């Protein structure tokens, strides 16, 4: 391959990379603006205490964030529920509780996973209404 060919090929690669860079920069800017409008930047917590060892726990999330892939243990910890709260209210007898995902439990119990997630959200909201600061 001649030097001229190599040079032209190099220029073509550089041109493609610059176009890709511009596209990525536009997408990046758009997503940052969307994040800003959604208020995500106002939700951040100071990182200072974290650097000293233990940071403060974040606020209790909205129950609408509960998803099928979450485990009962994770929901109990992050929504600050008593350890057996979900087990009692949802009448769960699976021995793997709380280290079990909602999806896997619903399937093993013959329930529709989406309906079950809805029931968990309702229970968690019910607890949050009576205990705003958590357990």
């Amino acid at each position: 391959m001649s030097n001229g060919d190599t040079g032209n090929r190099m220029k073509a690669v550089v041109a493609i990379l610059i176009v890709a860079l511009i596209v990525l920069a536009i997408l990046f800017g758009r997503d940052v603006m969307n994040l800003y409008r959604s208020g995500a930047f106002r939700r951040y917590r100071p990182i200072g205490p974290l650097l000293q060892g233990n940071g403060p726990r974040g606020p209790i999330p909205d129950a609408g964030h509960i998803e099928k892939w979450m485990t009962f243990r994770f929901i109990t910890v992050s929504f600050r529920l008593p350890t057996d709260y979900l087990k009692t209210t949802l009448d769960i007898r699976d021995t793997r509780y709380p280290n079990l995902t909602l999806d896997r439990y619903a399937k093993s119990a013959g329930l529709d996973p989406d309906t079950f997630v809805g029931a968990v959200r309702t229970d968690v909201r019910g607890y949050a209404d009576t205990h705003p600061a958590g357990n």
Partner: protein
Amino acid sequence: MLITYFLSFLLLYRYAAIFVVTFLSSLVLPLPESAFLMAAGAFASQGYLEYPEVIAVGLAGTVAGDMSSYFLSRKYGKGFLMKIGFRRILRAEWFRELEENFSERAASSVFFSRFAVTWLGTTVNVLSGLAKLRLRTFLWADIAGEAIYVVAVVGTGYVFGDVWQNVSSVTEYLAGILAILMLLYFLRLMNRRRRRRKRSTVDSG
């Protein structure tokens, strides 16, 4: 979505899951490591995991994965890579140039590929092994680069908490921008080297 399996895996096996995913991702598998570590940071902010432990285990997993691919390529070398189908790439002119450029800037290549061009990480590990880069040089550059990467990604997840998924796509675009800038810089270096070689050939002729 694939990421949800990884998130369940993280919630079920916690620190062991962090080690396994970061190790395999650094070794060779294209796993969603950044999103995974960001999620671990978010879970730490909700009290499910401990932030220092997430950092320590994440760093241990990535460094162990990098060291493994470095040792494998150092031990088995080009002969093995040629046998498993990389013959054409290894004999290509551009690969030879890449090797020469890499040898000149091995430590900085290892360091920057850990956090600025993460998708090149495994390639750089293999090149380091093939170039028989000194273990100590590789190790320190690797630890320094991975520490920046792990602290930045886990820290972002921690800071943004339950909205980490919205932030994840932004960081992916940012990683893409950094990667292209690094590639442009690298092409400039290659071009300069080629011109220098051409000039010295003309002078000697």
